[in-house]
């Protein structure tokens, strides 16, 4: 029972870092998007932890909202990706270079 806020914060921060790393590294749009979800989850973790240790509910409620929003975003995002795939036959980010300079 000695786990404190710092430990959760480390867990969350590292998760955030891994997620960001994934966004930077991966070329597949879908995987990149998954990594984004990882980052959001890291935030959720931090919020829940803070909520617990601060003794207020707001963090938890916020997480509730974030999950809602994330779900909505994923839906829209995947719709865009699917539509784009229908047109371009690819989901690889480097292929998406019509817009530049």
């Amino acid at each position: 029972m000695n786990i404190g806020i710092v430990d959760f914060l480390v867990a969350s921060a590292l998760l955030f870092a891994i997620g960001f790393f994934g966004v930077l590294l991966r070329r597949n749009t879908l995987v990149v998007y998954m990594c984004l979800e990882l980052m959001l989850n890291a935030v959720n973790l931090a919020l829940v932890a803070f909520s617990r240790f601060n003794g207020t509910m707001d963090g938890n409620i916020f997480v509730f909202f974030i999950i809602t929003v994330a779900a909505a975003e994923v839906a829209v995002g995947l719709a865009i990706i699917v539509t784009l795939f229908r047109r371009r036959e690819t989901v690889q980010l480097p292929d998406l270079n019509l817009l530049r300079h």
Partner: protein
Amino acid sequence: MSNEQLIVSLLVVPFLSALVIGIFFRRRHEIAAAVSIAAASVVLLGSLYLIFGNIREEFSYEWMTFGDYTVSMGFYFNDLAALLLFVVAVVGFLIHIFSLGYMKEDPGKARYFAGLSLFMFSMMGIVFANNLIMIFIFWELVGLSSFLLINHYYHKPAASEAAKKAFIVNRLGDFGFLLGIIWSYWHFETLNLFEMAALVEANPDILHVGIGLLLFCSALGKSGQIPLHVWLPDAMEGPTPVSALIHAATMVAAGIYLLCRIYFLIPPEAMVWIMWVGAATAIFGSLCAITQTDIKKILAYSTISQLGYMVAAFGLGSLVIDGDAGTAIQAGIGAAMFHLVTHGFFKALLFLGAGSVIHACHHEQDIYRMGGLWRKMPVTFAAFTVGVLALVGMPGLAGFFSKDAILYLAWENNSALFLILAATALLTAFYMTRLWLAAFFGEPKTRASRDAKENNWIMTAPLVILAIFSVVAGYDFMHPAIFDGIMQEVPHAEGADFALVAGVSVAVLLAGLIAGWLFYGVGAREDRLEKQFPGLHGFLSARFFFDDVYEWYVVNVQQRFSSLLNFIDHILISGLIVRGAAGLVGLFSLGARAAHTGNLHVYVYWIFLGVVLMWLVVKGVQ
């Protein structure tokens, strides 16, 4: 009409005349001439009334004020002014009349007369002005009228060039003049001649050599002293009456007048410089005159030489060791002004005579293409002869008296100068003989000179009148008490001195005449000097390379310098710096554009690094 009003109207009438002609009578040549001559007559009559009515005035109107600095339109009419006014009014009137004949056929007659009126206006301004700024204004205005009149035959490139040269060289002189005026203003707190004189009188130490020399620059330019004389011979491109009026009798003499008017501002040290410049100009002018073949150019160089005489005379005033300085300067002024008056008459006469000849010979100006004219144009010949004799200083004629006064002054003060002036006198006699013999004697060498015939009375009458003046102007009765302010100062040699000076004078005169007669002979067809002493002739006809130096300066220095600056302006400032800076920013811009690679990952890096950057700033601040 009060005297003040009269003086102002003498100034305004010619101006109105010029204006009216310019606006209304550009194509009505006869009316234009009439208007201009009417103005000249008004000036003549008014002037005579002023001069002989013994009216002397000083008054001024405020023109412009800034703080303590005021410019006024001031008039100051004294004996000195009266003397010059006399010359200007009389010669001016006569030349107006002469022009009527000379310019009869000219298509630009109206323009010509407008120019004459403008000139009369400007000259009146110089005569009357009571402060240096007003003098300067009219100084530039005579320059302008001179420019316009020289440029009368504007379609001739030479005339156009000459006018330009005259104006610019005069501006060079005025550059010094203006500096002198500005300096004087801060030095004396005023530019009013009257007040400055009082200041100098109260405290003679306040004089400054620099101011004196800068003010002398005015005369340097207008009176064609070395090294700014180059414009005067070229100015002969203008109509001959103009040469007579402006470039012989009045405007060029105005430099002398100005010196005399501001003599109290010029300290003795400056006088010495002035004297030597004058002497150098005198001998230089006469040397150059020897090789010229253009009748007007000979006269022009002669004018330069005579102006040098006057300037030297003015400068000589400084050298009287014994006796107080004031008187000495007065003597110089007296001598210079005296010569100015006599020279004004006989040089105007000579030019008009030359004009008469040129007119008769259908604008032939080369003396070796004339000849035998004495028979065909007796009146002109007679008058011209009087002029020549007056110029060379034949005893009994006007030139003799005035030249003697100067020679005497030189004799008294500086023997070296005396020698130079005497030599000048000899050369004068020499080249005038050459001109006289070549133009009027021998056989006519061209068809034009063969067909020449005497001009009508409109042109000969002024000649005769001027000839009379050239004879009598040296005598005392011509100078009643009203001119005493000047004429009393003219040095008169007495006794042994008189004998000596007069003797030398006559001797050099005779020597010159005889040498000329013998050397050139009667009715020469070509220049003997050129044939026998080509080296000497070449040297003299190069006119001491002054023109070449100027030419070289303009082409090789000024033009190249401005081209260089233009290049720098375009390439360095406009090109390298301004366009370069724009180009540099453009490069950055291309770089910034290239940063938008279209690759999403790169964009995520941007965001990531953005946060890092912000955090670094936070850390940096803490």
